[in-house]
């Protein structure tokens, strides 16, 4: 009720900014503690993430993965489900994408393969979410546990398949053969080049556009369809949902399928857009980071895009930092990420009350 009086920019601008600043301040202390110059480091971090077009490309490329997993976590959250299994769903989704590419890359054109791969990724991701969803809906098995278990199972399954079935001939590592170019999702820099836009070489590819489309899809689905209405009802008040004749179990299963499908699209970016072959561990923790992205993005697509960009910037800026100052290890970048999650996520209310109070008092005076 009090928010009405506080200017919007305070809540969406000032307070988040303060929180991030604080995170950087504390990170600076860590830098000092290990004898590095925090100012120089901050410079590289920011320059790396936003300072030149290639860097921006990388930032957005990471953000693409995080948008998918963030949306995945978020849509389940909307129905009151905590899908901690984005990692496994993304992994298996990637398998789906990879299989489509491996099967069709020499027989079909990109225009056909791309939609097939997207469907493949989404279907495989959804399939991996189905059992936990079914068990939650019909047997009440706690979805947090089952999705954790399915993450482990996905890892084992992938190693088994890669090593015994999908590995290319004659290479050491368990990676599949590289796809024919007809199964490569175009890079944005290649797409823009004919129009005279020079954007730096980066892995940023069409999957980014797909991610943005998913945001629109999410927004429409959740807030503008009757199904989304049911979903939100189940998530906020299951009793009211029963009263309204909504089948909670059915909604649970469907929303998890969508969640898993969204997570599975990470494979489109990673497998089809960047690596161009099927490999192990390409999910690299994006599924878990998606939890933080979803929550920090307040479970809203715009928020999720912003949070994903923030994290993408940290990944890319951090890589730049570690690259430019070799004595700085990649792990310290992880610390910065953690601090950002802490201060702008978990401690987001720390300043809120005081600052709002300040503005309210000024408004009252």
């Amino acid at each position, binding site marked *: *009720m*009090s928010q*009405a009086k506080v200017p919007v920019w305070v809540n969406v601008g000032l307070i988040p900014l303060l929180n991030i600043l604080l995170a950087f301040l504390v990170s600076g202390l860590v830098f000092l503690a290990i004898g590095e110059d925090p100012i120089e480091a901050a410079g590289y971090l920011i320059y790396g993430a936003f300072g030149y077009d290639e860097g921006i490309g990388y930032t957005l490329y990471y953000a693409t993965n995080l948008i998918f997993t963030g949306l995945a976590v978020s849509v389940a959250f909307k129905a009151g489900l905590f899908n901690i299994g984005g990692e496994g769903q993304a992994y298996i989704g990637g398998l789906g994408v990879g299989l489509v590419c491996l099967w069709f890359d020499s027989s079909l054109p990109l225009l056909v393969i791309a939609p097939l791969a997207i469907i493949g990724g989404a279907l495989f991701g959804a399939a991996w979410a189905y059992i936990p969803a079914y068990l939650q809906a019909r047997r009440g098995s706690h979805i947090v546990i089952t999705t954790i278990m399915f993450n482990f199972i996905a890892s084992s399954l992938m190693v088994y398949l890669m090593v015994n079935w999908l590995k290319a001939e004659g290479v050491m590592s368990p990676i599949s053969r590289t796809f024919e170019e007809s199964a490569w999702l175009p890079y944005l820099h290649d797409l823009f080049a004919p129009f005279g836009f020079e954007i730096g070489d980066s892995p940023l590819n069409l999957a980014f556009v797909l991610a943005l489309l998913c945001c629109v899809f999410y927004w*429409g689905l959740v807030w*503008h*369809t*009757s199904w989304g*209405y*049911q979903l*939100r*009802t189940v998530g*906020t*008040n299951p*009793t*009211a949902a*029963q*009263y*309204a*004749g*909504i*089948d909670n179990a059915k909604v649970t299963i469907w929303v998890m399928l969508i969640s898993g499908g969204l997570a599975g699209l990470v494979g489109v970016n990673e497998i089809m857009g960047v690596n161009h072959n099927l490999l192990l561990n390409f999910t690299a923790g994006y599924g878990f980071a998606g939890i933080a992205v979803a929550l920090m993005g307040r479970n809203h697509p715009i928020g999720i895009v912003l949070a994903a960009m923030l994290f993408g910037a940290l990944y890319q800026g951090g890589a730049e930092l570690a690259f430019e100052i070799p004595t700085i290890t990649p792990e310290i970048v992880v610390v910065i990420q953690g601090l950002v999650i802490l201060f702008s996520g978990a401690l987001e209310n720390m300043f809120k009350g005081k600052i709002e109070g300040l503005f309210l008092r000024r408004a009252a005076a």
Partner: protein
Amino acid sequence: MTQQTHPYSIELEGISKRFGTVQANKNIDLQVPAGTIHGIIGENGAGKSTLMSIIYGFYEADSGAISIDGQQVSIRSSEDAIHAGIGMVHQHFMLVENFSVLENVMLGAEGGALLKQGIAAARKELKRLEQEYSLDVDVEAIVEDLPVGLQQRVEILKALYRGAKILILDEPTGVLTPQEADHLFRILKSLKEQGVTVILITHKLREILASTDNVSVMRQGEMVAHRETAQTDKEELAELMVGKKVRLKVNKDEAQPQQTVLSAKDLSFFDGQGVERLKKVSLELKAGEILGIAGVSGNGQSELLNVLSGITPMSSGEIQFAGQIISASAPKNAAQMRDLKMAHVPEDRHKMGLVTGFEAYEAAVLGYHDSDAYNGKLLMDRKAMLDECNERMAAWDVRPPNPHLKTANFSGGNQQKIVIAREVEQNPDVLLIGQPTRGVDIGAIENIHEQIVKLRDAGKAILLVSVELDEIMALSDRIIVMFDGAVVGEVTASDANERTLGLMMANAWNEGQGAQA
């Protein structure tokens, strides 16, 4: 216990409290004479609970002073209040539901780091209190298994166990049968005789007149009047509360019942724990009549509404409705029942009737969200929803008439209007309606009652569940009484009176008494 050092147990001076933009308490003065029962009345949202919460240290006042027995005290937490000898029974019980009675009573007064030491002492003390005030309750019982009446006794025991000299009760009778309420007032009387000062908040003027010594009236956050109970009457108090004259009776004509539209035969329902919550309930509902279901809450009324409306499937029995036979083997869910033109205003608008996180226009289509009226080909038709919501808000005088306001931010009465409007405007053949005026103030009650009668007169069949006997008697054409999941009696409205119904509700009625009741 009776030596009084000061004429006033509690004195409040200039208490103010604001929540954001709401000034809940404005410069309140109050003096409560020691060893009396002091009533406080006021409309919903007048600020009564807030004031009591301040005395109990649950909220801190923005300004003002509190004195206990003439000593100014600083009450900054409930702990301070308990030390000052204040006990409170909250409007919404503050019990840990899966704890036993004993554990609840001991919480915060365990008497040592190990429970073992305290348990024996607590048992003994409870036994004494139970005997002294005839507050029987099984101390080993788990609170959530107890009927609300007993839960309330647990709250009182909690306060007494902590040695309260001042006992605050916030709307204690809302959930009690008349007999239970009578028992409560006997308890309060004996407390008063022991020197305990009682502050009683209630909406029921009858109770104020029957049991208090003094009464104070609040309106919109301010203390507007003090009266000696003996010197006032219902009409005056009602007028002081609302600020205008109110009619205290429902106007309605004789019912014109027509054909039976819904009949239920031998409905039984077992809950998840295997407890039989409905026992072979049969009833018939006719067009153009209001069938009232009386009973203390927790005696199967909620389950009956849930089974009839399709929310929970029955265990056995059958329902005939709209040419269909619905049974355990051929169930229909809530959405399907709605399609057959059955509407349902649930008992609990927060838990069931609304999604309080939704904006009003969204909550206004709950259950009808799939209907063509609100859906385009692919997406929901937001404009249609908003237009209709605006219309209804105007027609039903919902305040503020803002379809974008979060449902949670409407007052209870206005939330209730949103729910009732939604269900009634679907033009159903049968309307199930539970606790239509729970927590709703006098002005709004009048309006809701009028609407229900109007609907009946339009030939709809209405099943009304209420724990308010006044309401049941004022509205119903026929009354069924439920006890322990079964129907224990049926009377016509003209034969009904408070005593008979009250006894039936307590299952203490036997036919012989009927005639002279």
